[in-house]
């Protein structure tokens, strides 16, 4: 009976549809954090980051395209610096809160370990040699390091992210990455089962 209850709880946890979009998602005003689902709370935190980036872009005036790579590179650096200064106190776990991290770990585990997961696992394991870096929030992930391919099966199970943000594995760490700046927004260590 107790086991059945546990299984039911897990099923309910997953049936709260992690595939809902994060962008533009926010609970009704006045909703207390306690009443929000883990995914909604995660979405709010991601949107908080997006607002900071948007403000920084507005301040710099967004760069849609350029034939000058120096201009693209300097815009990226300036944008990253502005975001970092706004998030100077950001820490690991601010966005992947313990509850969110547990939920993501469950989804990752389900996708990469168990029956019929070998193809997704192979996607994660297919990588080019990379230099080892110690990850921290607000660091720019080195551009000379390749990025591991994100398994499509996993992406289909995770909450949708706003434009120019992505989930990535770096080694065994699961990372929330800003694609525009390559800034590490947050991460979950040892996420690969």
């Amino acid at each position: 009976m107790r086991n059945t209850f546990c299984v039911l709880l897990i099923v309910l946890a997953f049936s709260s549809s992690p595939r809902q979009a994060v962008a533009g998602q926010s609970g009704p005003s006045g909703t207390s954090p306690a009443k929000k689902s883990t995914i909604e709370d995660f979405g709010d935190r991601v949107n908080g980051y997006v607002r900071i980036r948007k403000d920084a872009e507005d301040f710099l005036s967004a760069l849609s395209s350029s034939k000058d790579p120096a201009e693209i590179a300097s815009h990226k650096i300036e944008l990253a610096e502005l975001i970092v200064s706004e998030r100077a106190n950001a820490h690991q776990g601010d966005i992947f809160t313990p509850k969110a991290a547990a939920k993501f770990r469950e989804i990752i585990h389900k996708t990469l370990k168990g029956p019929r997961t070998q193809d997704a696992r192979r996607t994660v394991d297919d990588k080019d040699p990379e230099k080892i870096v110690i990850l921290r929030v607000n660091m720019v992930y080195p551009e000379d390091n390749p990025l591991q391919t994100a398994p499509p099966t996993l992406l289909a199970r995770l909450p949708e992210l706003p434009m120019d943000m992505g989930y990535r594995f770096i080694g065994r760490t699961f990372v929330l990455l800003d694609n525009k700046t390559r800034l590490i927004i947050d991460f979950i260590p040892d996420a690969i089962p």
Partner: protein
Amino acid sequence: MKTIRRFIGLALLPICLSLYGQKLTLPVHQGAVRFAAIGDMGTGEPPQYQVASRMNDIREEFPFDFVIMLGDNIYGGNSAADFQNKFELPYKLLLDAGVKFYASLGNHDAATQKTYKPFNMDGQQYYTYKKSNVQFFALDSNYMSPQEVLWLTKELQKSTADWKVCYFHHPLYSSAKFHGSSVELRQVLEPLFMKYGVQVVFSGHDHVYERIKPQNGIHYFIEGAAGELRKGDLKTTAITAAGYDQDQSFLLVEISGDELDFQAVSRLGVTIDQGSFSRIPERRPSDTRRGGR
């Protein structure tokens, strides 16, 4: 003496091969869509420049208008110097001649490349464009999100082009030892390709040239050796139609009416593969019904 003779022989071999291999077999039909495909090129090393130079030479006989880039466009960073040494300088003659480049992103590429005008990505990580009766779909296989799959489904669905050509970095089929087939990606993409009549797919990632025997009616090419090379990495398997892993290479393609002609050329100008195939007209819904109950 014997050693000297052998040395001279070996030294002359590339030149002889080069002269022999210069023969272009592509038809050059009037009004055809002509392009080159290169992947894993952005090293900035001499072989990339040599391939680029060979492409430029061949353009006199085979005037291709554009180049599709199969990812890993710029290795090792995205500074102005990187773009200059790994793209602008090697392809200068082609760029000056007005040849357009349409990039897709590889696992070594920064997302900011999409804002670099000469890559013609228009700020998009995945995009589509048409050339005459051919529609191209440049995908981001590093991050095949549900949004991208939905976008591709819609774009393929509404495409009325005779030819639908997809290209992206990771090969759905590959006989190379280092990376091999991206099976998970194949499970996501191939059903769409089959359903909406994609005829040809180009990829890179494995640093070899390989043409795969048609799989479910789709022709797959790997051209991941336009700068990088993994010599000896190709093992011939049951799906290999042709392959080459002894030198850098690039691929030339002409599409005219219902016919596609291709020729793969090595850095030294040797033809390493060539051939043609016809488009199988798409089955219309009425055709399907005809065979039904």
